[in-house]
């Protein structure tokens, strides 16, 4: 019995360690700050002004998708924004597109998916969420077009608002993205070590061996284990947590010393993650890779911008929003990853393989239904998907699960039905299930070797249907409105 408990604990801890490894931190930490920057520095009006009633459909739908990827990260912001966009005059279609695309197309979700599972899956998630997001939006607009017309009358001056992102803000955002790319791209320029020094600190290698014994890993299963560098990074993360709590939690009352300590620690952590470290007997080598220099340069540029170009409000808003995301998402992520590691020990691969090992309709549907009915906090769907992958789930059903999970939970369906009514909400759920299954099937087919051109053609035909129908209905309604107006003018 105690042996089993030990195995479960090690499973949990091992999983946690893999998710806090250097390469994950290098993509996750910048991503939180990018999300914070988008929320704080991009005025919502600069994007929502494309969603107004009078905006042509080929601007409104992509605009809604853009809004989804740039304006919102967790369901706490997505649903209120959806309510705001819908009630303030955007059509049902663009609002639904926003609602569908935001959970899947935001920076944190994409970066984390790419860093943990693979760039191909992240790209597939992005492209298919975008296509189907626009598709579902158009279909909902079609089905409910008559009601939409009535709702149309309340158009709102909110969408005539201007608002543009300031140049300093844009540059700041771009350098944050550069930091992310410098930290994660696997190109030779970055991975090569340009200077190597050997620190005469003995004992690092036996420290690392001790960790390996404490938290064993299975290289054949693709697990990485905790290195000495990983342990150092985890320690730094804990320090960041403590100092950030003291320095950022009451930031609206003013900065204090802890604020700057916390920020310096974040920079230090990212730099440490960018180094190469190899312990050996008698000391350990520290490699100053290209990545290290790239990250260092980006950090320097960001610091300069922070103090010389961002306004006081912008700086504080950015720090607060980034910290808010961290507070909200990171603890649950850690808990979720640990739980996934524990559960993984208990699930037999055969179960997963029978159900979803092949790219079948049943397999994809199973993935989708699991995502719909199980609620997991933001981002935790990624480690869960990774676990299923390791247990034998085919990549098709995996994508189906990833598409469905962040979209729907009983709680968010409830909130959505308050905004658009129960009928529309459940129709939306139905279409999400259908399209997520389809997305999984399509991606799975690509993985199995179906050429991209064939799939693109299928997608094109599938999406053209609702598009043309919507255009025709729009013209028909437009003529009806004109007839009604000319009749009342007589």
């Amino acid at each position, binding site marked *: 019995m105690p042996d089993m408990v030990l195995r479960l604990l090690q499973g949990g801890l091992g999983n946690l360690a893999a998710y806090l490894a250097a390469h994950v931190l290098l993509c996750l930490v910048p991503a939180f700050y990018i999300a914070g920057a988008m929320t704080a520095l991009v005025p919502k009006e600069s994007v929502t002004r494309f969603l107004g009633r009078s905006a042509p459909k080929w601007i409104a739908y992509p605009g809604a998708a853009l809004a989804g990827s740039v304006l919102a990260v967790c369901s706490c912001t997505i649903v209120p924004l959806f309510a705001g*966009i819908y009630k303030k005059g955007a059509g049902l279609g663009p609002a639904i597109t926003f609602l569908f695309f935001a959970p899947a197309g935001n920076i944190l979700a994409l970066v984390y998916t790419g860093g943990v599972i693979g760039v191909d899956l992240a790209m597939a998630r992005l492209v298919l969420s975008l296509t189907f997001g626009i598709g579902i939006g158009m279909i909902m607009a079609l089905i409910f077009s008559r009601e939409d017309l009535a709702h149309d009358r309340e158009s709102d001056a909110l969408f005539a608002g201007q608002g543009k992102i300031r140049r300093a803000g844009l540059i700041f955002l771009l350098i944050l993205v550069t930091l992310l790319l410098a930290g994660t791209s696997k190109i030779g320029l970055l991975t090569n070590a340009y200077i190597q020094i050997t620190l005469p600190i003995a004992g690092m290698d036996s420290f690392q061996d001790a960790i390996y014994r404490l938290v064993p890993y299975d290289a054949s299963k693709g697990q990485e284990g905790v290195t000495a560098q990983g342990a150092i990074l985890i320690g730094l993360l804990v320090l960041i947590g403590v100092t950030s709590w003291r320095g950022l939690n009451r930031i609206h009352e003013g900065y204090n010393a802890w604020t700057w300590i916390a920020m310096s620690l974040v920079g230090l952590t990212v730099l440490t993650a960018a180094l190469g470290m190899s312990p050996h007997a008698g000391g350990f080598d520290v490699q100053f890779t290209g990545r290290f220099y790239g990250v260092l340069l980006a950090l320097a540029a960001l610091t300069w911008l922070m103090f010389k170009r961002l306004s006081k409000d912008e700086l*504080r808003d950015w720090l607060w929003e980034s910290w808010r995301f961290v507070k909200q998402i990171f603890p649950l992520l850690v808990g979720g990853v640990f739980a996934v590691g524990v559960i993984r020990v208990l699930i037999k691969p055969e179960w997963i393989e029978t159900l979803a090992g092949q790219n079948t309709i049943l397999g994809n549907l199973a993935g989708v239904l699991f995502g719909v009915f199980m609620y997991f906090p933001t981002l935790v769907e990624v480690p869960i998907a990774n676990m299923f992958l390791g247990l034998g789930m085919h990549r098709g059903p995996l994508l189906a699960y990833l598409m469905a999970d962040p979209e729907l939970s009983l709680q968010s369906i409830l909130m959505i039905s308050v905004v658009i009514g129960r009928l529309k909400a459940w129709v939306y759920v139905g279409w999400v299930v259908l399209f997520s299954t389809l997305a999984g099937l399509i991606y799975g087919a690509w993985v199995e070797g179906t050429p991209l051109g064939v799939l693109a053609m299928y997608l094109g035909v599938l999406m053209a249907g609702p598009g043309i129908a919507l255009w025709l209905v729009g013209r028909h309604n437009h003529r009806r409105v004109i007839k009604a107006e000319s009749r009342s003018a007589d």
Partner: protein
Amino acid sequence: MLTIKVLGPGCANCKALEGVARKAVDSLGIEAEIIKVEDYAQIMQYHILATPALVVNEKVVVSGRVPGVDQVTSLLADAAMQAP
């Protein structure tokens, strides 16, 4: 007396805004009533795009972000002078 409403469905930003509003009221020492509005239907009555939002005497003064205590203090001071 000022009527201050904090609009938000209960997320971290709305709670932060409420805290900021309270601090501002305390530092000014004025008479004010702070009401938290969490009901969606009521929030949508005020024409805002994103929560949280601060409403003083039925006028939306801040929306979509959490302002600093100093900014809210000066907003409240202005409002108190205009409508005694």
